[in-house]
């Protein structure tokens, strides 16, 4: 079964391109769905800052 967001939108003899399905167990900032990179809860600081606003 295909993952929900894996849409085959182009298929040729050699290449199948899909929309990537991300592992749900890891937090990734994604355009439009997560806070700005300048969020004060900047997880990138690597120290005690976990943003609680990712949804």
């Amino acid at each position, binding site marked *: 079964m*295909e*993952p929900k967001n*894996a849409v085959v939108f*182009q298929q*040729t003899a*050699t*290449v*199948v*391109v*899909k*929309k*990537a*399905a*991300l*592992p*749900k*167990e*890891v*937090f*990734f*900032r*994604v*355009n439009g769905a*997560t806070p*700005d*990179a*300048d*969020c*004060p*809860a*900047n*997880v*990138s*600081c*690597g*120290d*005690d*800052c*976990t*943003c*609680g*606003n990712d949804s």
Partner: protein
Amino acid sequence: MSSAILDQDTLVVMDEKTFIVFSPFQQNIARVSSNPLEDSDLYEQLRQNGFFQEPPQHIQIQREWSGFTSLTLFLTRGCNLGCRYCYAKAKPYAPGMSMPIDLATSSIDWFLRQLKKDTIRLTFHGGGEPTLEEQTIKTVYSNVESRRDGKDARYLITSNGTAPKSFLSWMMDRKFSINFSVDGPPDIQDRNRPLVGGGASSQVVEDNIRYVVNYGYPLSVRMTFSEGDDIERTLRYFASLGIKRVHLEPLFPYGREYDANSLKSAGEHGISQPKGRELLTGFLSAMDVAKQLDIKLYNGHLAHFMKGTAYFCGAASGRSMMVTHDGFLSGCIEVTDGKEVAADHFIIGKWDNQVDGFIVDEEKIVTMMTRHPDGILEACKDCFARFTCSGGCAIKALHRTGSFFSKDNSYCAFTRAIVPEVVKRIAVESKI
């Protein structure tokens, strides 16, 4: 080829005898049987399908500073815990080591005057335990709420998890994002994060975690991973308490006892930084367990993997305004007062009573902004992981090498090792 290459916005990762082609920004993925070398038909075919495009603007080096977009207040240098590895070298809480309320409210005035965005982002953070300054937090909150003038306001606090329940309730009722720093089951927590006078902290912290979770409130924990600790056991412990979000970082050997105990190898307290590939294998193992337990893992580097970033840190690039209790503007969440050894590198301004505002060293901020793969970090210029970490944490680099404009090779090695592994996992998830 190396384990991965980066061409424009696209990663190519060798996976046994095939190649995974992945654009994090477009979220497109494909698997091909040969290496898509530039000028080949395959490369052109992939390019026409959205790969190998110009990287987005937001990851490019910035040459001009345009003001602060968030505010963090370091409320106190005092703490009620005595964590073995405390980066801030916090001291037992006592009068005179906290931010005066006037400075806190003046900081908000100044920040709001220069803020161009529609969202007010305010964080209460360490240098000590911020919840010890409950009254200042409540005053600051009222001040912001009365003046936000239609703007959205978001509050976040990072705590050691020892706050009174009444204050936790107050924050939850006001929708603060709450993050507890906790290292794991009682034996690990009490070894790493004892009470300031000695003794176990695990009971009060665990009790507070249950309180917040039972409130039905989302709680994140930030755990420091030390060499030899069992990540799986720690995640299962957090899951048993109802935790769904875990920020996982390794122990860094820079802190309170760095001189007495380098933390590079297990010493008096039995804690040390993970060596070699232990962090990589630990994180991959954590991903497997987190998937089973329905936990989401956070990591400072991987968080940027899909969106990319120009700068690893908002503070060291002049976006996050961080005010120390003694009135300095800090360019690092770990430089928590004007007396820090790294202050010369990271202090970017100071409160001035005569002008009733902060004097900002804009030239220093602009210089900081050259810490970018297309700037001074030439070693990162051709790295396939450059959009993920953009050179990594500046103060870790400074501690390790003596230079702000360098990188922490240990964490760099982790990042370069995990990025291809994450791409392979995305390929599996995407069934290609």
